[in-house]
C-alpha cells in the first residue's frame, strides 16, 4: 500500500464528502444572513438530487440535469420565502414541512420516473483536469483534477465571501439579517432582499443534491440526502455564518467521516458505532474547545413587520 496515495485518496475523499454539505451550508448562509432560518436545506438537497437525476435520465445530458436542479431548488426556495417572508409562517415549521413534502414527493415521483431502472448509472459530469497543475503530488489531484461542480464550489465560496463583504448586495444582505428595520428605513426593500437570498439558498443547496446524483453516486435513491442538510446547518453555525468558516466546517465533517471509514477499512477493532459517531463527536469537541460562541444574525427567525415598534 502506497502511503502517499493513501493519504492523497484520503484528502480527496474528505473533499468529496464535504462538497454536498458545503453547497447546502453556503445556501443556508444566504438565507440565514438575510434573517430567514433555513431548516429546509435537507429538503432542498433532496429536491436537487432528484431533479438533477430525473432531467438527466430523460435527456441524457447532465448539464440539463444541473439546470433543472437549479430551477427546482430555486422554486423550493421561493416557496420557503413566500411562507416565511410574506405569510410570516413560523420559519422553523416552514422548513420542517418542506422537508416532509420533499421527502414524500421526490420518492413518489422517483417511482414514477425511474420505475425499474432506478439504479441505472446516469451519465455523469467528468473530471476536468487542469494540465500541469494536476501533476503536483497530493495537491494536484485534490485541487486540479476535479469535476465542474467542485470548481464551482471553490469559486462560490470565494465569490460569496467577496459578495458578502465587498459588494453592495452583500452589505444589504448583512444589514437586513442584522436589523431589518434599520435596513428598511435606509431605503432597502427588506422583503425583496429576503426573497432573493432564500431563492439563492434553494439553488445552492440543490446543487449539493445534484452533486450527489451526478457526480458522487450517479443515480437517485430515495432519502439519499440522509441528514446532510442538518449537518450543513451545524456546519453553518460552526462556521459562524461565514462562507470560508462554514466551508471549513464542512471539510472537518468530511475529513472525520473519511477518516472513520478508513479506520474501519483498515480493520481496527473498535465497535463501528463509535466510528460512525466520530464526525459528530469531533465537531462537538471542536465547538467546545474553540469556546465556540457563535452569534447568529440578530434578526434570524423573526419575521419583519414594517409597522412594528418593538419586536415582541
Amino acid at each position, binding site marked *: 500500500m502506497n502511503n502517499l496515495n493513501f493519504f492523497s485518496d484520503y484528502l480527496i475523499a474528505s473533499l468529496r464528502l464535504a462538497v454536498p454539505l458545503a453547497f447546502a451550508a453556503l445556501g443556508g448562509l444566504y438565507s440565514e444572513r438575510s434573517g430567514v432560518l433555513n431548516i429546509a436545506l435537507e429538503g432542498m438537497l433532496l429536491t436537487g438530487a432528484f431533479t438533477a437525476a430525473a432531467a438527466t435520465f430523460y435527456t441524457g445530458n447532465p448539464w440539463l440535469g444541473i439546470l433543472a436542479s437549479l430551477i427546482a431548488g430555486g422554486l423550493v426556495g421561493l416557496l420557503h420565502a413566500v*411562507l416565511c417572508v410574506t*405569510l410570516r409562517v413560523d420559519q422553523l415549521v416552514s422548513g420542517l414541512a*418542506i422537508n416532509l413534502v420533499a421527502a414524500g414527493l421526490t*420518492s413518489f415521483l422517483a417511482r414514477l420516473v425511474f420505475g425499474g431502472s432506478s439504479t441505472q448509472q446516469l451519465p455523469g459530469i467528468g473530471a476536468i483536469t487542469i494540465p500541469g497543475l494536476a501533476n503536483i503530488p497530493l495537491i494536484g489531484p485534490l485541487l486540479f483534477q476535479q469535476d465542474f461542480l467542485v470548481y464551482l464550489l471553490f469559486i462560490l465560496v470565494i465569490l460569496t465571501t467577496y459578495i458578502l463583504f465587498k459588494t453592495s448586495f452583500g452589505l444589504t444582505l448583512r444589514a437586513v439579517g442584522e436589523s431589518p428595520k434599520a435596513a428598511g428605513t435606509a431605503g432597502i426593500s427588506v422583503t425583496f432582499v429576503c426573497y432573493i437570498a432564500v431563492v439563492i439558498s434553494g439553488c445552492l443547496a440543490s446543487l449539493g443534491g445534484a452533486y450527489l446524483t451526478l457526480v458522487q453516486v450517479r443515480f437517485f435513491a430515495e432519502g439519499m440526502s440522509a441528514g446532510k442538510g442538518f449537518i450543513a446547518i451545524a456546519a453553518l453555525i460552526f462556521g459562524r455564518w461565514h462562507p470560508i468558516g462554514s466551508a471549513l466546517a464542512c471539510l472537518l465533517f468530511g475529513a472525520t467521516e473519511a477518516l472513520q471509514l478508513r479506520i474501519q477499512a483498515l480493520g481496527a477493532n473498535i465497535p463501528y458505532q463509535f466510528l460512525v459517531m466520530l464526525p459528530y*463527536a469531533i465537531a462537538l469537541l471542536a465547538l467546545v474547545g474553540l469556546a465556540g460562541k457563535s452569534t447568529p444574525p440578530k434578526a434570524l427567525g423573526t419575521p419583519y413587520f414594517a409597522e412594528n415598534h418593538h419586536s415582541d
Partner: protein
Amino acid sequence: MIATNRMKFLLPILSPLIAITSALIVGAILMLIAGANPIAAYSILFQESISTYFGFGNTLTKMTPLLFASLGVLVALRAGQFNIGGEGQIYLGALGSTLIGLYVQGLPAVIHIPLALLAGFFFGAVWGWIPGYLKAMRGVNEVITTLLLNYIAVNLVSYLVQNPLMATGAPSPYSPLIAKTSRLPIILPQSLAHAGILFGLIAAGILWVLLVRSPLGYQITAVGFNPTAARYAHISVERTIMLVMAFSGGLAGLAGSCEVMGLKYRLFEQVSPGYGFDAIAIAFLSRGSVVGVVLTSLFFAALRSGANVMQRSAGVPITVVYAIQGFMVLFIAISLAVEREIRVKTLWSAKV
C-alpha cells in the same frame, strides 16, 4: 361589528379545517396518480385514527411519545432555547428505563415503574443538560449541540443493544424483555394503548401549573423573553437555562421510557422514528400553549396512525402518505399565519 364577532369565533375552527382539506385534496390527486382510491383511503384514515376502538388505541400509543417530546420542546422554547435534540434525549430516556427494567428485579410494580420512569427522565435530562451547560457557561449555540448529540445518542444505543445489552439468540439487535413489574399496564384492553398517555397528560398538567402558576415558570418565561432584564433582576440566567434544558431533555426522555415500558418492553435500535422532529413542529404550531400541545400531538398521532392504515388497507404508497403529512403541516402553518393576519386586520378595522 356582529360579522366580525362571528368571524372571530369561526376563524380558529374554520382555518385549520380549510388547511386540512387542502392537504387532503393534494393527497387525493397524488393517490389518483398512483392508482389508489382516495375516497376509500380517507374513510379508512378517518375511521382508523379516531372512530374505531383499536384505531384510537393506536392513536393514543403514538400520542404518548409525541406529547412528552413536544412538552420538552415547549419548555425549552419558553426559556428561548431551541431544543432540536429531542430525538437523542428519547434514546437516552429509553436506555435509562431499560437499565432499571432489566437489572433491578423483584420490586413491586408501584415502585419499579416510577423508578424506571425516573431513570428515563434522568438520562434524558443529562442529555439535555449538556447543551444547556454549554450554552449557559460557554455560549455554544444549543441548536448545533443538541443536533450533534442526537447522532451520538443513536449510535450509543445502537452499540449497546448490539453488544452488552443484546438478547441472546436475537436475530436483530434488541435487549431482553424488561421485568414485568416495570411494564406500563394497558389501559384499553386488547389494544396497544398503555398507561404512558396518562402520565403524559399528567405531565402536561404539571407543566401547565409550573409555567402558568409557579414562580419557576415565571422565571423561565422572563429569561426567555429578556435575559438581560432577568439578569438585572438578579435571576440567574445561566442556572435557569441549564435547568430548563435538563427538564426539557427529561420530558423527551420520558417519551423514550414509555416506548420501552409500554410498547416494546425492551430496548431496540430505532427507538424513535423521528418523534423528536415531529415534536418541534408540534411545539411551534401550538405557539407555546400547553393545551395546544396536547391537542396538536393528538392530531399528529391520529395522522401518523391513520396514515399507517391508509397504506395497509387502501394501498396508498408510503410516499404519498409522507407527502400528505408534509402538506398538512405546511397548510396548517399557513392557515395559522393567515388567521393571525386576518385577526389583526379585523381588530384594527373594527373601530375605525
